[in-house]
């Protein structure tokens, strides 16, 4: 045994002999909590809050991911419009394409317009018609890609009318249908996600209510003593709230940390498998699995919200419990 360890052991023995069993010496400067923490919020409670926070953060992360991806799709689609010109006997296609392009480019909010040339059109049709295709021999519609300024969108109605007057076979597609569908899908996903989040928070609050009621019942003798020494209901509630706030903070922090680790893990996985078909598919659907600063901020908000929700719920439950007890079962002597 080293000198240091023997000194510490002797010191411990001397202290025990001095203080004796059942004594807490004046060494304990900080007063003992009136409601002992062991009686209130145990590990199970912290674990339940951690799981709820973890699931809430995952839900929020998924919502953020879908919303951001939908917003990206929406922006990409909204940056372009397409003019399609159907072939017709006697129609001078190159001339029609040039006229349509010139009309489009003259509008405010249009940053450019380019004709999809015959070679590019052939490449577009290659999956269906094979290679070596003579595009001129087939009545294939031709396209003009109009690039838009997302900040100031052109007057599509006027553009559509003018193009149709100049080239009757032309149609202008501003991708509005797709954008509307995407917006609707994103909104539905966000609403469902928020509803799930609300359910999670409600379940957390209900768990805290059960735990608080259990803690109140288990600490009835302390509440009784506090009553007859003149403690107000708010004081009694605060004694329970501090434990639940602490349990809520511990559980929420653990759950939030777990969720952040999962997000980072997904991001790392998608980054490492960037070139594989699986990752490409996932990236096409969800972007690169990065939830971004708003997602991490959301996790922090959920953590704080759950800790505050735990403390508030326990406070309200204690007050309502005390009110019921006062009305139906006054403290006895």
């Amino acid at each position, binding site marked *: 045994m080293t000198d240091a360890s023997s000194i510490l052991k002797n010191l411990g023995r001397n202290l025990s002999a001095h203080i004796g069993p*059942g*004594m807490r010496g004046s060494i304990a400067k900080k007063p003992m909590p*009136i409601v002992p923490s062991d009686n209130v919020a145990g590990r199970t409670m912290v674990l339940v809050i951690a799981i709820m926070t973890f699931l809430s953060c995952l839900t929020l992360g998924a919502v953020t991911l879908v919303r951001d991806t939908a917003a990206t799709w929406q922006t990409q689609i909204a940056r372009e419009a397409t003019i399609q010109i159907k072939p017709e006997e006697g129609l001078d296609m190159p001339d029609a394409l040039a006229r349509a392009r010139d009309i489009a480019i003259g509008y405010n909010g249009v940053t450019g317009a380019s004709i999809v040339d015959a070679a590019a059109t052939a490449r577009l049709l290659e999956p269906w018609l094979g290679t070596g295709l003579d595009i001129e021999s087939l009545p294939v519609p031709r396209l003009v890609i109009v690039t838009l300024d997302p900040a100031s969108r052109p007057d599509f109605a006027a553009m559509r009318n003018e193009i149709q007057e100049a080239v009757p076979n032309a149609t202008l597609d501003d991708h509005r249908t797709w954008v509307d569908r995407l917006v609707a899908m994103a909104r539905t996903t966000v609403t469902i996600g928020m509803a799930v989040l609300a359910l999670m928070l409600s379940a957390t609050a209900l768990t805290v209510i059960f735990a608080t009621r259990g803690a109140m019942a288990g600490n009835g003798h302390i509440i009784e*003593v506090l009553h007859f020494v*003149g403690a107000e209901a708010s004081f009694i509630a605060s004694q329970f709230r501090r434990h639940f706030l602490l349990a809520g903070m511990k559980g929420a922090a653990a759950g939030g940390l777990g969720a952040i680790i999962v997000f980072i893990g997904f991001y790392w996985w998608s980054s490492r498998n960037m070139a594989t078909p699986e990752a490409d598919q996932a990236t096409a659907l969800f972007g690169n699995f990065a939830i971004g600063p708003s997602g991490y901020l959301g996790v922090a908000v959920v953590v704080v919200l759950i800790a505050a929700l735990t403390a508030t719920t326990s406070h309200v439950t204690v007050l309502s419990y005390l*009110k019921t007890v*006062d009305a139906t079962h*006054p403290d*006895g002597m």
Partner: protein
Amino acid sequence: MIRFENVGHRYGMGPEILRDVSFQLPERSFQFLSGPSGAGKTTLLRLLFMSLKPTRGLITIFGKDRSKITRTELPLLRRNIGVVFQDFRLLDHLTTYENVALPLRVRGREEASYRADVIELLKWVGLGERMHVLPPILSGGEKQRAAIARALIEQPRILLADEPTGNVDPQLARRLLRLLIELNRLGTAVVIATHDLGLMDQVDARRMVLSAGRLEIYD
């Protein structure tokens, strides 16, 4: 200070435990409350402590009609009443010092502002050496003295003691009685509920005797 007028009480649909009880507790008075078991002593103490409402009659406590005292007023009024229970009701996880200081802590006072007072009171009741001991380690008499000290720490206007000498030997009972008499001299009204005739014989004080729910007073 406290007045009962034709007070009656029954629990639920049961028989009436107290019937037409009328009396007055003046400031600085000293009285014993006695009577056989089941006569209604504890119920009367609970009515005095406002943990029960009478089913009939009028109780006036510190100038307020009991029936009109709200839940928020109750704790503030209770701070004028010290209670000593037969079973002490000390909190086992708090030291003697912390138990005695509890009423002050509940009022939101800083520990530094009351430490000296609590230590002085603990010395006065003979627990100066036991202030850092947890209640399970204390003897019955020490627990009783700790409970009395807790009831006295805020210098209440009235002290209600339910069988304060029930768990102690006669010598300690006399010592506790002297403590309560001393407290009464300092200005606190005292009501001692007891079966102990020997204890009552030691003091020439008013006796309130409950019998089958009715109260007789012997001044």
